[in-house]
């Protein structure tokens, strides 16, 4: 981003942030550098740029053998028989396993155990694991795998989610094909309004497109258990599921996080975890599994494709009277996190607006499409494309601008959601919109100075400015932060302080997964701030400590940050008590600062290293956010969520209307983050999230036909490149949430939600087209 007028420079953004009204009162006891609110260097940054970072796919053990997975070529089939005899004869093969070799329960699942570790008598999606091979060399394993004879009886795949809801599909699971139906009923179901707009919207299947494929190394242990080194998002949920499948007590399955190359939700479900452990236990050798790119597309869940039918009723000024909606989410072959995705789409289905009368029905169903589950912003992303498109239609019907219609309906602190829950912290929806709307617009294309890279089609030479129309569009979104609906959401952290070589040093231990978002750095910052200790090391994340919950739902800085702060406070209390005894003072007169304990009364000081001597102070804390509750299954009423995140985008696009090509010229974003714990990481999340939303708007889609993925490669599944991503103007607001540690608000998901509708609105503004489906493709614009 070399554009000198590009203001996405951290210092300016911070200034904007600091001018925000309600900043959290700081309780910083220290001035050691690198604390909360600064942006210290990340330990992984230089390694990643230089290509030296060790990812899970780099794991190596001298004695290891390689595991591969035989997958179903059919989206739906009965398995009549599996014959492994031929595969076993290949020299170098160590084991060939099928479902009969699964020692524990052959079922797993994030929310429901409905998925077999290895298929039994039926396969429900293309790519479902059927058998495993371990061999001395990965090629040997693959060759042996091709010699496994599976006799399939191919069945018609169920591929239409709406037809499933209508009851017109054969049963795929014993309990029925509806994974969850969640209605939301608020106010008058028969409300009427003078202005009514309707629309049906569709969202294609997006992929997380992380660069590091699924990989891990399972090492059999002398106690009959197994140690698994793996790239994942949630160590303990993996551990529990692996133990059940292996029939082992939980403490015999130990996991350690390995280098994660991106996650975005796609690593929340198991992939190779049980498989590698099974092979390790059978062969008695360390087993490495690494998916290739194509296999990775079959090896993880995707974003639910959706059909959304909406009706908005408003008064003549555009104030919403009612919203009615039916949302159909295709969950694919297994449940994964579909129930939670349904909850989000339903409870957040009207967006960040005040609506007195709401009737939403949301269904998540089984089909024979690839399983869908967690992906950044889940549920909220699909709904936002529909409700924001509707808000633009409403604006047009009423005759006001897109910003004005949103301002007239914007939710605020104190607003009531369709679930009946009152929003009890900042909800600056109007402020965010005003900020992006007030930013200067980028200059129009200057025909005299055409830089092809700035035009639709880029350097493909498709246009030199002729036939190009500019459009501007807006989007705003809402996302629940942390786990909702009564889930016992907690994290665990251990903090230890000791003197090392005469200098005081702290160590942090959690099971919270660093997936590239910068959690390690934030945890260090928290300890520096709380204990005034400069040297903070973060131990490898593993299951030898308590659960930290998932790195998802924008929750990890909130939850594990909260746990580390709590553990730090416990350590601090102990240190102050020790110093009080040493100094003959009362602990309440003492503070920690710069590696020493100081008396606020008489300035007396004791150096921490001296105070500790050969001892260490170590405390473990388990930390919870305030409780939520399940929503009523019939009315959808209930205090389901802990916190909300909001972001707004303004998109400026140039569209080549002849060829249907879009260039996003600029994205402006304003987001409230409560507290910018690490301002640079916040900007990174906003830029990355916005890019992922851009991808969904104009190019990213897993093409499915008859249940089969047609583009399982990065040649055919397109994600934005640096040439597609425009400069951003970003405002970060810090309106403290008094319920959250440091007042912070989860950052990762909101920018993904609002960038997609803003970009599509801008394309509509340029072309006058309805554009009811994302991704928008050239043929949608040229009208063919």
């Amino acid at each position, binding site marked *: 981003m070399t554009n000198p007028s590009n203001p996405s420079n951290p210092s300016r953004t911070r200034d904007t942030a600091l001018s925000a009204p309600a900043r959290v009162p700081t309780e910083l006891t220290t001035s050691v550098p690198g604390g909360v609110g600064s942006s210290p260097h990340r330990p992984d940054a230089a390694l990643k740029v230089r290509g030296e970072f060790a990812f899970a796919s780099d794991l190596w053990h001298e004695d290891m053998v390689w595991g591969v997975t035989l997958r179903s070529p059919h989206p739906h089939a009965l398995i009549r028989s599996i014959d492994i005899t031929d595969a076993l004869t290949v020299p170098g093969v160590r084991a060939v396993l099928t479902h009969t070799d699964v020692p524990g329960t052959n079922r797993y699942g994030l929310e429901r155990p409905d998925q077999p570790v290895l298929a039994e008598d039926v396969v429900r999606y293309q790519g479902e694991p059927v058998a495993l091979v371990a061999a001395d060399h990965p090629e040997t394993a693959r060759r042996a795998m091709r010699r496994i004879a599976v006799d399939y009886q191919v069945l018609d795949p169920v591929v239409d989610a709406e037809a499933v809801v209508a009851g017109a599909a054969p049963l795929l699971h014993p309990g029925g094909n509806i994974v969850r139906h969640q209605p939301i009923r608020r106010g008058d179901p028969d409300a009427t309004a003078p202005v009514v707009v309707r629309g049906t919207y569709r969202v294609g299947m997006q992929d997380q497109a992380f660069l590091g494929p699924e990989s891990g190394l399972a090492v059999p242990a002398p106690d009959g258990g197994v140690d698994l080194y793996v790239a994942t998002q949630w160590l303990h949920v993996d551990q529990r599921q692996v133990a059940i499948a292996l029939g082992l007590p939980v403490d015999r399955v130990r996991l350690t996080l390995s280098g994660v190359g991106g996650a975005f939700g796609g690593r929340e479900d198991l992939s190779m975890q049980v498989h590698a452990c099974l092979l390790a236990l059978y062969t008695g050798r360390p087993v490495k599994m690494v998916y*290739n790119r194509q296999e990775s597309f079959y090896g993880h869940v995707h974003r639910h494709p959706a059909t959304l039918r909406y009706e908005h009723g408003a008064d003549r000024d555009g104030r919403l009277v009612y919203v009615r909606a039916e949302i159909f989410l295709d969950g694919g072959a297994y449940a994964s996190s579909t129930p939670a995705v349904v909850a989000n789409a339903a409870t957040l289905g009207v967006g960040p607006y005040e609506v007195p009368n709401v009737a939403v029905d949301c269904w998540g169903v089984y089909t024979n499409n690839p399983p869908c589950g967690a992906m950044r912003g889940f549920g909220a992303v699909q709904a936002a494309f529909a409700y924001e498109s509707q808000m633009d239609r409403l604006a047009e019907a009423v005759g006001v601008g897109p910003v004005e219609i949103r301002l007239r309906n914007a939710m605020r602190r104190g607003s009531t959601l369709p679930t009946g829950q009152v929003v009890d912290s900042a909800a600056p929806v109007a402020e965010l919109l005003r900020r992006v709307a007030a930013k200067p617009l980028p200059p129009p294309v200057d025909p005299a100075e055409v830089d092809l890279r700035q035009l639709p089609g880029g*350097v*493909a*030479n498709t246009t030199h400015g002729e036939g190009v129309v500019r459009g501007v569009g807006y989007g705003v979104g809402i996302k629940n932060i942390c786990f909702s609906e009564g889930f016992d959401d907690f994290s665990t952290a251990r903090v230890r302080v000791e003197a090392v070589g005469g200098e005081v040093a702290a160590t942090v231990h959690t099971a919270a997964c660093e997936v590239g978002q910068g959690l390690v750095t934030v945890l260090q910052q928290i300890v520096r701030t709380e204990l005034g200790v400069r040297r903070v090391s973060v131990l490898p994340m593993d299951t030898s400590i308590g659960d930290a919950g998932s790195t998802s739902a924008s929750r990890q800085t909130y939850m594990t940050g909260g746990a580390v702060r709590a553990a730090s406070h416990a350590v601090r209390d102990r240190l102050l008590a020790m110093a009080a005894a040493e100094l003959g003072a009362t602990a309440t007169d003492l503070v920690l600062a710069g590696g020493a304990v100081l008396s606020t009364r008489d300035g007396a000081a004791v150096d921490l290293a001296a105070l500790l001597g050969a001892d260490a102070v170590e405390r473990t804390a388990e930390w919870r956010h305030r409780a939520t509750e399940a929503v009523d299954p019939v009315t959808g009423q209930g205090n389901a969520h802990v916190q909300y995140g909001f972001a707004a985008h303004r998109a400026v696009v140039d569209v080549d209307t002849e060829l*249907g090509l879009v260039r996003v010229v600029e994205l402006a974003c304003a987001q409230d983050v409560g507290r910018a714990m690490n301002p640079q990481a916040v900007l990174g999340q906003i830029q990355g999230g916005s890019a992922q939303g851009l991808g969904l708007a104009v190019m990213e889609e897993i093409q499915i036909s008859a249940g089969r993925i047609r583009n399982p490669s990065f*040649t*055919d599944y397109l994600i934005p*490149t640096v040439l597609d991503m425009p400069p951003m103007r970003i405002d970060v607001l810090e309106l403290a949430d008094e319920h959250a540690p440091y007042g912070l608000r989860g950052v990762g998901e909101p920018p993904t939600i609002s960038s997609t509708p803003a970009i599509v609105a801008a394309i509509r503004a340029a072309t006058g087209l309805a554009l009811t489906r994302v991704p928008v493709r050239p043929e949608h614009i*040229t009208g063919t």
Partner: protein
Amino acid sequence: MNPFEYRRATDVAEAVAAVAERPDAVFLGGGTNLVDHLKLGVTRPGRLVDITRLPLDRVEPLPGGGVRVGANVRNSDLAAEPVIRSRYPVLAQALLSGASGQLRNLATTGGNLLQRTRCVYFQDITTPCNKRMPGSGCAALDGYTRHHAVLGASPQCVAVHPSDMAVALAALDAVVRTHGPAGQRAIPLVEFHRLPGAQPERDTVLDHGELITAVDLPAVPATRRSAYRKVRDRASYAFALVSVAAEVELRDGEISQARIAFGGLAHKPWRAQRAEQVLRGAPATAATFQRAAEAELVGAQPLADNAFKVPLARNTLVSVLTELTELTGATEPTQEDTP
């Protein structure tokens, strides 16, 4: 990957013999296409004959003003060659619009011409495909056809040829020079690639063991203008939905000469002779360009998901011709800033 024998050839005759003597032997160029296919199991050769050390890596002038491009000249080098940039901008632009910088550094002229279709069913070895496995059927026909052909397809295969470079070469009337077990040949590029017909497994007219040694570009008059345009789903690093290579000469507001080729529409670079006929001798107006496009595309037979390609091809042709006939000079290619 299956085990295979690897040989590095040091002269042309040896390379040809090493492939000709074994039905499962293939030439290896930059490997950017072939190695992917080895990994995917699309092809399982028993012998690879590496030809990248053969002395076929020069761009040389030909008597009469043409240019000879050796088969091993890398795509990046060819696009950067001053004579190509100045006299054959359509070719430089086509090369730079293809793949990415890293791939172009490896990809060879010969390999680019012989790269195989990106039809997803061709690459997915679990589905039937007449091109990969003759007689097995065509999975695309009742599959997802957004990227497939609208011209010249057969009931056996509806795949498109993916090369950008070949489209420019088709418009340039280039000639492919080969050296095979039966001697040397010169094949006009427009006759080099085949339509699928009943034998979609054959992409070109080459015989087994026939090595491409060079591509000859005929001389171009100084008055000729040319350009390549490619329409794709993102700003870089994606195959063409539709592309157009066009060369025109103007005399007194009339088009005296036109050579047009489409990419992304057919099993081969599609030389648009019907469009050329309409253009020749006609005034350089929007109406002429429309008529030319329609004359060519009237025979298009879209599949379930690719009807958009027809108007897209028309609009692309009209806009490239408009630009070529309005501009005073040939456009210089832009160096792509590939991430």
